[in-house]
C-alpha cells in the first residue's frame, strides 16, 4: 500500500522541494485510464542564442553533445528529440510583423488575419487564422477529463496576437492565465469536496448545480433561436461549455485527497522577481491536473513576444527583448544564453514532475508529448529559419534520444506529425501551402 499524502502536503512540498516520483506514487491508480495521452506546449519569447542552444552532432543522430543552454536537460536526453533546420514558414510573410506572425503561427501553422493589433514595428495584424494544434488535440485526447484544456502563463501580459499561442479556431484566441490561484480554481474548483465518499450534503450540492445549470441551458437555447446565423456559433459554443461545466461540477468527488488539493500559496505573479515561484506553482498544478486526469492538454507561455522583461532572479537587470536584438558578436548577447538556460531549467522541472508514475503504471511523461519552442529563431534577425524546437516524452511513439536536422522543411509538417503521432488521421495542418507532409524519421 502506497503512502498517501494529504492534500496540504502535496502543494506545500511542491513549492519547496522537487518531488517527482514519491508524490505521484501516492495517488490512487484510479485517476486516469491506462494509456492516457497528454500534450503540453511550452513557449518562450524572442528566439534563442543559437550557438549555445543547438547540440553538436558527433556523426550520428543519437551521438550528439548537448549545448551549454541545455545542460539541465541532460537527464532527460533519452526522452528528448532535438530538432534543427525546421522553418516557421508561415511566419515569414503576411499581415503583421515577425513576432506576431511567429507566435500566431507557432501552434496553428496558419497566417494572421488582417486586423488592428499594432506590432513591434508599427505594422498591423489580426489574430491567427486557424485552430492551434493543442486545441485540435483536445478533440483526440480529451476523453472523460473535465477540463478540455489549460492555458497558463508566467507574466504573459499582452492581450493581443503578440501574447496568445492557443486558438479554438480562426480568430478565437485563448488567453493565458497568469495567476496560479486562478489556475487552481480552473482545475480543482468548484469541486465536490474531497474525501471520496458521497454524503447527503454532496447530493444536495449536485442537485443545486444541476438544476441551476439546466435552467441556464434552456435560456441559451431559447436565445439562440432568436439571433442571426453568424451569432449562433457563439451561443452554441457557450451551450457546450455550460454542459461541460455541469458535468464537471456535479461529478462525484475524486477518489483521493491528493486530487482535491488546497489552494496554492499566494504569489505576486505580476512581478518579474516572482517569475520562478509563479512558474513552479503553475507547473505543479499542471502536473497534478495531469496525474488526476483533470485535463490532458495544456500550453504554458513565458511572457509574450512584445515583452520588455528583465530577469533579476538570474541577475539580468536589463530588457531581455533588447538583449535578444544584439548581434551574435556582441558579448552582452551571452545574457540571452543565460535566459535560455533558465528556460531549460523550467522545462526540466516540468519533465521531472511528469516523470512520476502511479504504482505499476508507465510514467506520465512516457505517455505525453512536451513541445518547446519560440516564435523566432533569433531576435537579432527576427528570422524564422532553423527554429529552436524540442520534443520530450513517449506519447507519440517518436524515437527519442536523437538530434534530427531537416533541410528547411516547414514546421507545419511537425505539427502534422504530432497530430498523426497521437492517432489523428489528418493529412495536412494549418496553411496547406506550408504543409508538405509529415516529417520522416521521427518514429
Amino acid at each position: 500500500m502506497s503512502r498517501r499524502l494529504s492534500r496540504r502536503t502535496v502543494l506545500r512540498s511542491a513549492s519547496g522541494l522537487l518531488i517527482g516520483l514519491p508524490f505521484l506514487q501516492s495517488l490512487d491508480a484510479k485517476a486516469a485510464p491506462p494509456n492516457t495521452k497528454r500534450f503540453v506546449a511550452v513557449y518562450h519569447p524572442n528566439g534563442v542564442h543559437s550557438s549555445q542552444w543547438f547540440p553538436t552532432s558527433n556523426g550520428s543522430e543519437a551521438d550528439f553533445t548537448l549545448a551549454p543552454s541545455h545542460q539541465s536537460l541532460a537527464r532527460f536526453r533519452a526522452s528528448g528529440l532535438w530538432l534543427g533546420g525546421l522553418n516557421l514558414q508561415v511566419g515569414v510573410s503576411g499581415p503583421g510583423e515577425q513576432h506576431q506572425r511567429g507566435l500566431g503561427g507557432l501552434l496553428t501553422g496558419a497566417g494572421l488575419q488582417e486586423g488592428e493589433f499594432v506590432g513591434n514595428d508599427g505594422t498591423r495584424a489580426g489574430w491567427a487564422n486557424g485552430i492551434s494544434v493543442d486545441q485540435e488535440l483536445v478533440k483526440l485526447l480529451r476523453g472523460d477529463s473535465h477540463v478540455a484544456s489549460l492555458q497558463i502563463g508566467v507574466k504573459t501580459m499582452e492581450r493581443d496576437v503578440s501574447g496568445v499561442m492557443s486558438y479554438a479556431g480562426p480568430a478565437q484566441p485563448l488567453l493565458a492565465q497568469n495567476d496560479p490561484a486562478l489556475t487552481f480554481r480552473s482545475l480543482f474548483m468548484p469541486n465536490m469536496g474531497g474525501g471520496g465518499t458521497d454524503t447527503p450534503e454532496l447530493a444536495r450540492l449536485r442537485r443545486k448545480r444541476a438544476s441551476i445549470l439546466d435552467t441556464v441551458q434552456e435560456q441559451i437555447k431559447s436565445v439562440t433561436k432568436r439571433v442571426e446565423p453568424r451569432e449562433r456559433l457563439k451561443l452554441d459554443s457557450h451551450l457546450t461549455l455550460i454542459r461541460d461545466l455541469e458535468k464537471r461540477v456535479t461529478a462525484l468527488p475524486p477518489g483521493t485527497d491528493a486530487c482535491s488539493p488546497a489552494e496554492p500559496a499566494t504569489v505576486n505573479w505580476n512581478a518579474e522577481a516572482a517569475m520562478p515561484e509563479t512558474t513552479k506553482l503553475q507547473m505543479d498544478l499542471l502536473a497534478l491536473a495531469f496525474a488526476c486526469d483533470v485535463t490532458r492538454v495544456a500550453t504554458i507561455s513565458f511572457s509574450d513576444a512584445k515583452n520588455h522583461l528583465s530577469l533579476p532572479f538570474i541577475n539580468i537587470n536589463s530588457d531581455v527583448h533588447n538583449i535578444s536584438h544584439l548581434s551574435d558578436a556582441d558579448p552582452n548577447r551571452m545574457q540571452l544564453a543565460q535566459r535560455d538556460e533558465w528556460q531549460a531549467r523550467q522545462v526540466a522541472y516540468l519533465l521531472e514532475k511528469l516523470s512520476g508514475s502511479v504504482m505499476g503504471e508507465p510514467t506520465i511523461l512516457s505517455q505525453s508529448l512536451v513541445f518547446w519552442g519560440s516564435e523566432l529563431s533569433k531576435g537579432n534577425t527576427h528570422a524564422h529559419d532553423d527554429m529552436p524546437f524540442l520534443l520530450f516524452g513517449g506519447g507519440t511513439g517518436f524515437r527519442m534520444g536523437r538530434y534530427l536536422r531537416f533541410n528547411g522543411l516547414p514546421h507545419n509538417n511537425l505539427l502534422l506529425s504530432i497530430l498523426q503521432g497521437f492517432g489523428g488521421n489528418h493529412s495536412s495542418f494549418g496553411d496547406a501551402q506550408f504543409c508538405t507532409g509529415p516529417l520522416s524519421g521521427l518514429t
Partner: protein
Amino acid sequence: MTLLRCATIAILGLGLAACPKPRPDDPQPTACEEAGPPKATPLRLLTRAEYQNTVRALLGADAPDVAKDFPKEPLVLGFDNNADLNRVTAEGATRYFEAAETLAAWAVAKHKAQLVSCAAEDLNCGKDFIAKMGRHIFRRALSSDEQTPFNTLFSQTLSAENFDTAVEWTLAALLQSPQFLYRFETGAPSDKARTYKLSGNELASKLSYFLWASGPDEELLQAAESGALDSPEGLRAQAERMLKDARAEVSFERFFALWLNFDLISSTEKYATAFPDYTPDLAQAWRSSLSLYIRNVWRSARGFDALFTSNTLYANNQMGLYGPAVTTPEFQAMTMSSQERSGVLSQPGLLARLSAPDQSSPIRRGIFVLDHVLCQPPPPPPGNAAFVPPPPRADATTRERFAQHSSDDSCAQCHRLIDPVGFGFEQYDGLGRFRSQENGKDVDASGAIVTAREKGLAGPFMGLSELSQKLAGSRQAQDCMSSNWLRFAMGRVDSADDLCSLQNVQAKFAESDGDFAGLMLAIIESDSFLYRAAPETL
C-alpha cells in the same frame, strides 16, 4: 562600443523601403454618402468592468468583487469591449458560475429585502421576484416563455428546500443567463435600405453601458418600454439626464483607463539601480492619481482643454518626490506650476509608463503623441530594426545619446518625426519627475511637431507645457479623440461605413469647444450608434 539600433536593416536587405510605408490610417475622406450601413455588433458580452458595475447596481454597492477574476478581455486599439472577440471561454463559464453562486448566496444573506418583499413567502412571491428582478437583470421584461424555466426552478426548489434557497438558486441561474451576460443589438427593419434600427430596449442598454458602464436604471427602462427612446427627443432627454448623473464619471474614467492603459501604469517596474525611489506602491499611486485627474476633467467645464492643460496634481504620501508634501495616504488636489504640470501628458504615471525602466524615452513619448493623441502614427520602422536604446551615461543628456537617430540615414526617416516630439518631454525623467538638469547639464526641452494634417499645427514648441497648449487647441487632436470615443461606444473598430457619423461627431465636438458631454451626445445621435447593417440572409 557598437550600437546596432537601426543599423541591422541594411544587412537584411529591407533597406529604406520599409520605413516610409504608411500604415493603415483613419478612413480616407471620400464622399460619406457612398458609405454602406454601419457594421453590426449583435451580441456584446459584458466586460469585467461592466459586469461588476452591473451586479453592484442590481444587488448592492457592497457586492463582492467577483469580476476581477474573470478572464481578461483581448484589447483592440486599446479597448476591451470588442464585440467580435469577447466570447465565453471554458475559463469564463467557470468564473461566471462561481460568481453567480457567490453573489446569489451573498445577496440573499445580506439584502433579501431588496430582492423580495411579499407578505407570504410562496410560489407567487417567487414568480413576482422572477418577473421584477428578471426585468432588471435582463434589462427588459421577460417573455412568459422565458419566465417558465425560472418558475419551475423556483417551484421545485421551494418544495425540496425552502423559500430563501429558491430565491438564491433562481438568482444564480438568472445571473448566468445569456440575456444578462450579453447585450443584444439585433434591431428591426428601418426606413433605410439594408439597415436595421435598434429597439428601445436595446438602445437603453447601449446608452447605459456607454454613459454609465452599467445597466439601465428604472427610469431608462420605462423610457424604453414606453417608446420614448424611439424618438430623437426622447433619446436625447434620457442621455442628458444620464450625463448629469454621477455614474457618467465612472464611464468617462473607464474610457481613459483604456486609452491611457492604467493596467500598464500600475504594473510598470523600474530598475532599482536607476530609480531607487521606485516602489510598487508608487506605481499604484500613479494609477490612483491619474484616475482622480481624469475624474476632475469630467467635472471641469473646460473639457478637452482641461484634459491637456490642467495644472492639478493629485498627490498622497507616496508622491512626495513630485513636490507636494502630503503626509496621508488620501489624495489631495494640489495646484502646481503650469511649467511643471500641464495636462494629462504631464501626469507622473503616464510619463513613467512612457519611459524605459532605467531612463526616460523620447521615442515612446513621441510615438504616444503622434499615434494616440493625433491619430497620425509614424511610419513603421524597418522590419528588422533592432530597438536597443543607447544605455544611460553619466556624461551626456538623453537627447545627446539619442543623436544617432538623426545622424543615421535609415533611422532618420522615421525618427525625424518621432524624436522632436519626444525631446519636448525631456524635462521629465523615467519616474515623471520634473528636472531642469540631467547629469549636470541643462535640459534642452525644445521640440517640434514636424508634420501634421492640420494646418498650422506643425512647428516648434518649448517643453511639454507649450506642446500641451498646442494640442489643447488642435482640431486634429479633437478629431482623434472623437474617433476613439466612437470606437469605444460601438465596441468595434470604425470602418469607411462610419465616415458620415464620424465626421458629424467630430464637427459637433469641435463646435462644442471640446465639451465631452457634447461629444457623447453627438455619438448617441449618430447613425453608427442607432443603426446597424441588416443581418446576412441565409
